[in-house]
């Protein structure tokens, strides 16, 4: 009796409503991607927009290529720098340690507009031309805190005695790093990397500021589609992107709790 009443309690009802609320917009978009005409009047089912998406959208694919390049390069940089820093901060006392910890929180919490504007003004002050490189720098900057936090969280659970054992057995610094520390934090590093990829592919606001002509990413392309002439191709693209998100989230399923804790 009691367990039954819990199942239909207020909070469960609320959660169900919220999930419906979160998914309705996605369903609407996906549903109308199979409409044969533009607009919200259902004609009949068709794959015409998927055809256009696949075979007749060269600039969209160019933008997607840019997105992929940026995502891979910035995530790799962020993963390497962020993981190393997490290890250093966890185990050593050195100058600038507290500076690094504090400053690594900030890009995550400051509004994206601020990061974007400050980078734009910085790049124009030091006269770096906007393009793929500036996007790469910006994405690495906002990705770093996530890797740093996820790896730090994993290191907090790390068993120190393993490290002492390695040292006692004669491992040097490099060996302890590559043979003991890194293998045990690989899950955190990997999930940090995947997180970066998603964030990088997702980002619009910051990219909007630091992109130059010809360096537009997929979100920028979607933006221009929304602003200057909506075509149902965007619905088809949405479905593909939602599927992509689902696949990434599925790969993440073991880390979802860590993700929730760090976001």
């Amino acid at each position, binding site marked *: 009796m009691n367990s039954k009443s819990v199942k239909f309690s207020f909070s469960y009802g609320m959660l169900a409503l919220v999930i419906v609320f979160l998914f309705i*917009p996605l369903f609407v978009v996906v549903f*109308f991607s199979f409409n044969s005409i533009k607009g919200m009047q259902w004609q009949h089912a068709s794959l015409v927009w998927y055809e256009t998406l696949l075979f007749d959208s060269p600039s969209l694919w160019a933008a997607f290529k840019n997105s992929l390049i940026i995502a891979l390069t910035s995530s790799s940089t962020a993963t390497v720098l962020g993981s190393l820093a997490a290890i250093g901060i966890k185990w*050593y006392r050195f100058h600038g340690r507290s500076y690094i910890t504090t400053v690594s929180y900030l890009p995550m919490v400051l509004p994206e507009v*601020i990061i974007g504007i400050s980078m734009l003004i910085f790049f124009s002050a030091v006269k770096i031309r906007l393009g793929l490189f500036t996007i790469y720098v910006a994405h690495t900057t906002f990705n770093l805190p996530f890797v740093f936090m996820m790896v730090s969280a994993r290191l907090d659970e790390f068993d120190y005695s393993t490290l002492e054992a390695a040292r006692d057995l004669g491992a040097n610094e490099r060996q302890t790093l590559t043979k003991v520390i890194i293998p045990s934090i690989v899950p955190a590093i990997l999930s940090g990397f995947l997180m970066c990829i998603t964030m990088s592919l997702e980002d619009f606001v910051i990219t909007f500021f630091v992109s130059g002509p010809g360096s537009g990413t997929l979100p920028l392309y979607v933006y221009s589609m929304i*602003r200057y002439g*909506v075509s149902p191709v965007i619905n088809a693209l949405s479905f593909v992107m939602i599927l992509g998100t689902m696949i990434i989230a599925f790969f993440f399923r073991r880390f979802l709790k860590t993700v929730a804790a760090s976001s």
Partner: protein
Amino acid sequence: MKRLLKSSDREKVLGTLYGGPMGLWFTLFFTIPIGIIILYSFLKRGLYGGIVWDFTLDAYRQMFNPSFAKVLFRTLWISVIATFFCLLIALPCGYAMAKSKHQTFLLFLIIIPFWTNSLIRIYAWISILSSEGFLNSVLLKFGIINQSLSLIYNNQAVIVVLIYMYLPFAILPLFTTIDKFDFSLLDAARDLGASKLGSIMRVMLPNIKSGISTAFIFTFIPIFGAYTVPLLVGGKDSTMIGNIIVDQVSKTRNWPLASAFSMILTLVSLVGVFWMLYSGKRELQLKKTNQQMIEQKVKLHHIRRRKK
């Protein structure tokens, strides 16, 4: 213990080797850019964009120009309302998720819309709310309305879409903290005669304060700095600070004013973050004493009961 084995010099070298690259990166591409913004906000604007190296408080004075003040005020009330609803909705959700046996699946459901590209989500709302949109066509079809309602390009639309966009930011930290909460405390409170709501309000809420403040910060700050949502679903009277900053940079090319507005956003965010970190730390300290106090109260209660 381990640290005693190492000389402090060696520690410094190794620490710098590990942490240095990220520190350098943040200094170059975060601290210095933010520093430039702070500097620019005190300079004079150049005739054709850029700045003139003259110290002045003009930019800050300009912010109090009535049209800008109005936007500041609007940003504030929109953010407060949207954040309030996010938290109000997120609390029971986080609670239900923490109590559920299917946590991973529920997280999956919350995270999918959350990770879906934000522009796609905004686009979805545009296709729902616009005058020939999904909602209007459904309502018209069923004869509930005779002519299309104007549901988009106003402040209400901005608030609804902001809630939609940032709800997961509130749900996730609340879920994480509630998940760590010891639910047997609630049973204890119920056993001691508290009502269900009363036990949640007086036993659980004080214990998940850090989660609430995290959820508040992680929804309030991005909403306060929102740019895309008011731009794409807002009307003429829905501009927020984020939009002003962008307009000042890209259209008016008034960099000092954009910087001054950015300073406001930055300050608000920093206050929020430090408050969050502080309350988190204090809670850890309080938790121990609280635990003891609760135990004592329970003991006292039992003693009193026995005496009766």
